[in-house]
Each structure stands twice: as structure tokens, then as C-alpha cells.
């Protein structure tokens, strides 16, 4: 395990310890449960975005994809807007919608040869537009007991949604470790040209990775809908940068070929602990964002410090 891998977990432990020392409210079991619950949605988003970052691409489509799937699921399961009551099938369709939008990002990347930065930004706008069309001015509220229950019911002290997130991290890790898709995503970030030289057609894998990521975002949109009992167009607002931050803090490189789902999970916990801790410690709301930014920069620089080399390239 290299230092780059060890840095973020150490940072997580240190930050956790500091908050625990500063605030008695922070170090309660209830609060730890709360932190884990609060990390659930971000963890699922981070799972998806990690595969994209691993390839050296970037994904800004999170707000649009989550918004579209959040509204879609709210309109498909039992709700106050129409007579649909598709239950699990509705959730599946919403996740597939997310996957479809992700697929569009990937297709535009490989067929038009437009950088993912732009294709995903475009798809985000499209997703928000589609969500707004479906929203049509009236808030869809869900009455589906199962979906609402996911956020409310607990197992071993944690909400079902949190267990779903744990399952996603596990599945993500398995994909990354044991599937060709995951290993190729990793390889594409390491040396894309070598794959082509070895006769591997990378384009389908790239599309598949964006599709997979889209499915994770779609699920995240469903989870937000479950938490709020309502489908919001803004369900994914801010999750794009939060997830990228979490992944980077966790040790995934934006240039690709390094990091992974477990790294990002650590990053997610780190970011969530920070958000929670700053509130618990009582930092003024005005300063919270700033302090968080400062700590993220400090954490990353502490993690890369042992790696510094004279002629190292930092982009």
C-alpha cells in the first residue's frame, strides 16, 4: 500500500479524531449513524464518477441525470400526480434512464470525439430540461410505501438507503476488481493507446463506463426522491463537484489510472465528516464553505507531500 493510498484514510482518522475531541455531540453513536446516512447518496454518486475519473475523463452530468431520474421515479411509483404505481419496476426504469443519459455522454465522446467535459456538461443541461418537462409545474410527491420506507426504515441502526450505498460500493469494487469493464476503465486511464495497440476497441468500454456511471447517478436520484418523498428537478444540485472532490480527496487522480471505488468511499466519508463536524463544532454558516475548502486543500497536500518529486508533473 503506497503512501498515496494510505494518506486519505489517515486524514479521515485525524479529522474524525479532531472533531471528536472538540465536540461531545460529534462523538455520539447517533451522530456516527447520521454521518453514514448522510454519506449514502454521495457515496453512490462517487461510485459512478470514480469509474469515469479512473479513465481520465470527467463527468459533470450528475445534476441533470439525477434530476431526470428523480422526477421520473416520482412519476412512476405511486404518487400524487398520476395513477402509476410501478413500484420496483419504476425504480428500475429511472435507473435505466440514468444509464441512458450516461450512454449519450459516452456516445458523444467516442463518436463526435468531443471531450467528456463538454459532452457531460451538455447532457446535464439536457437532463435538467427533460426533468423540467416532466415536472410540468406540479410537484410530484411519492406515496409508494416501499420507496418512502427506504429512507425511514432501519437495519442495524442504519437506514436502508445507507445499506444500498454500502451495496453499491461493494458492487462498484467488485466491478473494478473482477470485471473486464472495470479493469479496462483502469487501463484506459493508464495507457489508452496501448489498449488500441493490443487490439482492444476502447470506444465500447468508454461508452459502457459512462452508462454504468449514469446508472449509479440514476439510483442516487431515486435515493434523493426517497429521502424527500418528492421528485425534485434540483435533486442532483451540487453533487457533481462534491463527488469529484470526494474522489480526489480519496486519492483518485483526475488524470486517470489511479484510485478506485474504495478510495472514493474514504473521500466521501472525509467530506461528510467535515460537513457534519463543522456544524457540530458550531462554525458559523458563513465560514463553513471556506473552512471546508481549506481543509480539503490541506488534506490533499498532506497526502501528496511524501510523493513530491522535483520533476513531477502536476496539472
Amino acid at each position, binding site marked *: 500500500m503506497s503512501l498515496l493510498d494510505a494518506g486519505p484514510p489517515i486524514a479521515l482518522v485525524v479529522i474524525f479524531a479532531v472533531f471528536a475531541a472538540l465536540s461531545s455531540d460529534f462523538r455520539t453513536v447517533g451522530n456516527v449513524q447520521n454521518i453514514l446516512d448522510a454519506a449514502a447518496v454521495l457515496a453512490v454518486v462517487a461510485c459512478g464518477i470514480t469509474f469515469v475519473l479512473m*479513465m*481520465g*475523463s*470527467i463527468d*459533470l452530468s450528475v445534476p*441533470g441525470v439525477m434530476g431526470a431520474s428523480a422526477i421520473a421515479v416520482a412519476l412512476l411509483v405511486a404518487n400524487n400526480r398520476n395513477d402509476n404505481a410501478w413500484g420496483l419496476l419504476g425504480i428500475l426504469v429511472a435507473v435505466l434512464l440514468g444509464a441512458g443519459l450516461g450512454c449519450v455522454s459516452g456516445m*458523444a*465522446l467516442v463518436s*463526435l*470525439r*468531443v*471531450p*467528456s*467535459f*463538454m*459532452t457531460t*456538461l*451538455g*447532457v*446535464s*443541461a*439536457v*437532463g*435538467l*430540461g*427533460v426533468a*423540467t*418537462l416532466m415536472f410540468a409545474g406540479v410537484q410530484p410527491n411519492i406515496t409508494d410505501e416501499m420507496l418512502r420506507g427506504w429512507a425511514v426504515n432501519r437495519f442495524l441502526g442504519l437506514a436502508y438507503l445507507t445499506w444500498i450505498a454500502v451495496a453499491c460500493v461493494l458492487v462498484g469494487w467488485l466491478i473494478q476488481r473482477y470485471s473486464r469493464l472495470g479493469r479496462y476503465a483502469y487501463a484506459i486511464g493508464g495507457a*489508452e*493507446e496501448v489498449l488500441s495497440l493490443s487490439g482492444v476497441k476502447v470506444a465500447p468500454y468508454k461508452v459502457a463506463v459512462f452508462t454504468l456511471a449514469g446508472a449509479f447517478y440514476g439510483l442516487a436520484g431515486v435515493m434523493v426522491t426517497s429521502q424527500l418523498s418528492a421528485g425534485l428537478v434540483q435533486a442532483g444540485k451540487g453533487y457533481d*463537484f462534491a463527488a*469529484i*472532490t470526494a474522489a*480526489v480527496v480519496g486519492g483518485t*487522480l*483526475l488524470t*486517470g489510472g489511479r484510485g478506485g471505488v474504495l478510495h472514493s468511499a474514504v473521500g466521501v466519508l472525509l467530506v461528510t465528516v467535515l460537513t457534519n463536524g463543522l456544524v457540530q463544532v458550531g462554525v458559523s454558516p*458563513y*465560514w*463553513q*464553505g*471556506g*473552512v*471546508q*475548502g*481549506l481543509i*480539503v*486543500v490541506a488534506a*490533499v*497536500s498532506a497526502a*501528496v*507531500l511524501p*510523493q*513530491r518529486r522535483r*520533476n*513531477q*508533473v*502536476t*496539472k
Partner: protein
Amino acid sequence: MSTPVITEPASNPAAEPAVVTGAPTAAQRVTSFMPVIALVALLAALTIADPDFLTQRSLTAAVRTSAPLVVLAAGATLVVLCGGIDLSIAALCSLSTVFFAMWLPDLGGLTILVAVAAAGAIGAVQGIAHVVLRIPSFVVTLGGMSIFSAVALVISDAGPIRVIDRDATGWLNLYVAGYLPMSFFVALLVVAVISLIIKLTPLESFVRATGYSESAARLAGTPVDAVKVAAFTVSGACAGLAAVMLASRNFSGSPTMADNLLLPAVAAIVVGGTAITGGHGSLWRSLAGALVVTLLRVGLPIVGVPSAWEQILYGAIIVAAVALTLDRSKVLIIK
């Protein structure tokens, strides 16, 4: 100091006459004009959708509107050319509008310079943090973004600060030759001056070499760190100038005023055809890109596209625009 004298090589029979020139081919010329072609195509489409859109007043308003975005994008283009990214420009711009509005009563006309200088200095600090701590620019400026927002909120007491004295920036609302808005003229000037300085000095090769291959540049003795810090400084200063334009347009400074300009500014750079991976691109491209983005932002709703469809169209068109403008021969692997 000794000067090596190299004699002619003994035999060189196979030396072919140089038949090819380094001048760009016709195809390359077309690619370099693609951003302009995209701009014209978009304008034509908007005009077809609503013939009233193509009036002198309307175009004047559009270019005036685009001025702060052009300046922001121009500054950040330098950072992108060096292979980095500056996510803090919008937050820094917001912070600078607060600076400007706060300092104006005391400093008068000098405030413009002071605000630009302050923003430049803040940009430099980020640049130094990036090169000294060796943290990716994405992370440094992401941190900067939240820190600047917090500072702006606190010093402004979370509210807009009115600009009472409009004389200091009144000139920005004038028109050159009756038609060209002064703010856009200033934006053009910024693009032209920075471009010329880069073009006419070794900076061009410094910046590109840094962007294409930082390690090769460093081992060739190129002042990579200085170039990067300079790029962040200029990017910061441009955010400051954009702030002056926004504050003069809104008659106030506010801690969130420009926050939403980040993605449009980066989109402008990419739509112009500058490679997000560094090395290839130019400020002129970003100028055209900023105009495309502005036309999309104001044009679509004005010609009557409904809100939801406006977003869908926006998404589709920026992707199409990049498909058109990016010169793939300069960017081998598209990530």
C-alpha cells in the same frame, strides 16, 4: 566563454530539399476559423427563429452582455493552455465585486486598478500554492472557490453593497464610435493585448510547452513554475476586471454576483476549441466561444424557446459546437 564551432558533416548525400513549408494547409486554416463559423451559424439559426433578433441594437446588447464572460474566459484560457484549470474565477470575480464596491467610496477612480491588482494577487497566491505544494490546480482552485465565497459573504455582511459613485465606471457604459460598447471594447483589448504579448515573446512557446509536456519543458529550462504562477495571476486579474464590469453594470457588488459564470466561462473556452488538456488553443478562440455561449444564454429565451427546451437545446448545441471547433490533429487522445 567558448563558442563551439561545428564543421559541416562529412557526407550528406541524402539530404532532400525541403519541399514542404511549415505554413498551415487549407484544411488547418478552416479548423482555426471554426469557432467563428460556429458563431455565425448560431446567429443565423437564431435569426431564422426570430428575424427581429438580427438588429444592430440587439447585437450591440449581446456583445455588451458578453464582455465580462469574455474577460473571465480569456484569463482562464491561459491557465488551461498551461495544462491546468482555474475553477475559482467566478468566486474570485464575486469577491472582487465586493472589494470594488467597498473600496470605491475611499479610493474613487483608482479602485478599478486596486481591485484588479488585488484579484491578480489572489490569483498569484493560488498559482504559488499549486506549484509549491504540487497539488493539482483543480483542487487548489476548488478550495479557492469556497474560500473566496466565504470571505465575500463575511466582508459584505452577506448582502449587496451599492455603488453610489457611478463616475468611476461610467466610461464603461459608453460606446466607441457610437456602436461598439466600451466594455466589450475593453474585453477585446484585453484579449488582443494578452494574445500579442504571448505571440511576440517567447511566452508562447513557454506556455504551450508547459501545457503539452510539462516535464520536457522543465528539463529544457523553461520557467514552468513562473509561467504557471503568471497564468494564474493573469486569470485572477481578469476576474477582477470582469468584476469591475459587472459591478458597473449592476451598480453594486455582491458576494454571489458572478458565481454562476464558472461553467459558462469554461464552456466558452472549450467551445472555442481550446484543448482542456492544455497546449493547444488561443484567447481568440475563447472570445468566439464566449460569444457563442452568450448568444445561447440570451438568444434562446429571447427568440421564444420554452425554458425546458432551452436547456435541452443548450446542451445539444454546445456539444455540437465543440464537435465543430476542436482541432483533433492537435489533441491525440480525447478524454
